């Protein structure tokens, strides 16, 4: 019924004359301190590095070429592997947790979700630091092992790739739980019942019905963990002990130690490109899933 909508539209129109006026300060701010700097970085990627580390304003494609140089292929593959592994583990655990939360009585779900997300609200550095305490040679796990009577040599835990993966999974898990919970909680329980009714057992129902319908949540979770991990430099620095580099560390180094800003800029453009590519894929996956939902 149009009268439900029309007055709203009218009311908005009355103050409509001035929305720009309201939006201008914030948009100006974003333009000055986000759009302009990002465009600048984009431009920077096409300039040469100066002899003394400054910027030489002559056009070059060298930095872009350097990104794809075999010299860095290793780092990229390693970064992608660590990020991919972390994202996969986070999605598996996060999905299972979200599923278990939706299986809980409705009254308790909000509380469970709240506590699953709570750690996400605390400081990232502190959460990472907690794992140093856990994995340290004098740390909790070592202490626990000792207390249990194990006094052989423990394998090195801190400053390993495993530690980095644990740290990344730990930090981003709440986000994945949240992302997976959304589509799961929206599923009509009757769909699962219908599948069982038609003879599917629990596992078939899950694999053929529930999983495909919750792909968007999985995709969102995966993309964000992957992108945030591959661009991360804090966790590798703290838990990896500088043993290996991720793209994030590489960018960091170009700006703060190697002083090759144009290459750093090219690297970060590459990061953005990865992110946009994955987000596009994710949109595609969600659309596929909602299409599938319509067909059900």
């Amino acid at each position, binding site marked *: 019924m149009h009268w439900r909508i029309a007055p709203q539209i009218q009311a908005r129109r009355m103050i409509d004359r001035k929305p720009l006026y309201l*939006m201008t300060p914030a948009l100006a701010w*974003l333009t000055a301190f986000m759009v302009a700097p990002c465009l600048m970085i984009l431009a920077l990627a096409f300039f040469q590095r100066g002899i003394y580390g400054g910027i030489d304003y002559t056009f070059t494609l060298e930095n872009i070429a350097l990104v794809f140089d075999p010299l860095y292929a290793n780092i990229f593959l390693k970064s992608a592997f660590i990020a991919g592994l972390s994202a996969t583990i986070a999605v598996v655990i996060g999905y299972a947790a979200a599923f278990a939360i939706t299986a809980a009585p409705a009254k308790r779900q909000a509380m469970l979700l709240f*506590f*699953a997300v709570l750690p996400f*609200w605390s400081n990232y550095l502190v959460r990472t630091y907690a794992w140093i305490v856990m994995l340290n040679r004098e740390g909790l796990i070592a202490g626990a092992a000792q207390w249990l009577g194990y006094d052989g040599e423990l394998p090195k835990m801190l400053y390993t790739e495993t530690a980095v993966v644990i740290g990344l999974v730990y930090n981003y898990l709440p986000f994945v739980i949240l992302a997976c919970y959304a589509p799961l909680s929206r599923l009509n329980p009757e769909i699962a019942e219908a599948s069982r009714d038609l003879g599917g057992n629990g596992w078939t129902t899950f694999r053929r019905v529930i999983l495909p319908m919750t792909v968007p949540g999985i995709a969102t979770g995966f993309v964000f963990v992957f*992108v945030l991990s591959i661009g991360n430099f804090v966790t590798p620095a*703290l838990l990896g002990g500088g043993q290996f580099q991720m793209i994030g560390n590489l960018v960091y180094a170009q700006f703060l130690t190697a002083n090759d800003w144009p290459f750093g800029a090219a690297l970060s453009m590459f*990061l*953005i490109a990865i992110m946009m590519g994955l987000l596009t894929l994710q949109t595609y996956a969600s659309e596929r899933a909602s299409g599938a939902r319509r067909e059900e």
Partner: protein
Amino acid sequence: MRSIANPRLMLMILSAVFAFLYIPISVLFALSFNEGGLPTAWTGFSVKWYGALFRNSDIMGAALNTLVVAVISTALATILGTLLAVGVEIRRRKGRFLETIIFAPMIIPDIVLAIALLSFFSLLNVTLGLHTVILSHVVFNLAFVCSVVRSRLKTFDWSVVEASTDLGAPMVVTLWRVVLPVMMPAVIAGALLAFTLSLDEFIIAFFTAGAGRDSITLPMQIFAMIRFGVTPEINALAAIVMTLSVVILALSQRLNRGGLPGQ
């Protein structure tokens, strides 16, 4: 999902996940009260590390800096973000470009924004310091405030604006007396969210604060402490910082029943 879930399995999953999430944090808390300061042995309850913390002038200086950054950037972001939210929601046609610009600060990887700002400030010959951190923090803070306020405005009944006009109020009075009070919980929730984000933000501050010792923020200090030798004080600091963020965000969540962005 209950119909196909195995209750025992579900319980096991939840226990394992919550243990994974909470054990490391709880250990930190416990440790901050451990007399000996080491995770390997409990030598007795003590608050001495908290005392040491407050006597550490480096930490206190960094904390003060962080407070300055958080307060100023939150104030600016709240004003800008709220106006932006009202402006966007009043518009009938939603521009995709506009949405992207507003959404971008929340999803751009921190490191990209950080180096972009660093290059930008250096090229303009701006001296780095707390002021550049503030300028930078406003970018993502205003986006979060805007998103919280917008979610509130989505359920706003705009006909009260007409009702106010009909009863004789000029537009300024209407915005002040009718629109703002309705938005207020969301504005405060957004401000609290921005405040914690700013308190905890490390990467952008790290790049835009410059090299001076007097512009170190608390997260930068924590990073340095973790990296270059762990002193037991950091457990106390970690416990305080963590509690602070969680309490403020829980408050924000409570105020804004619509939920935080992403939820």
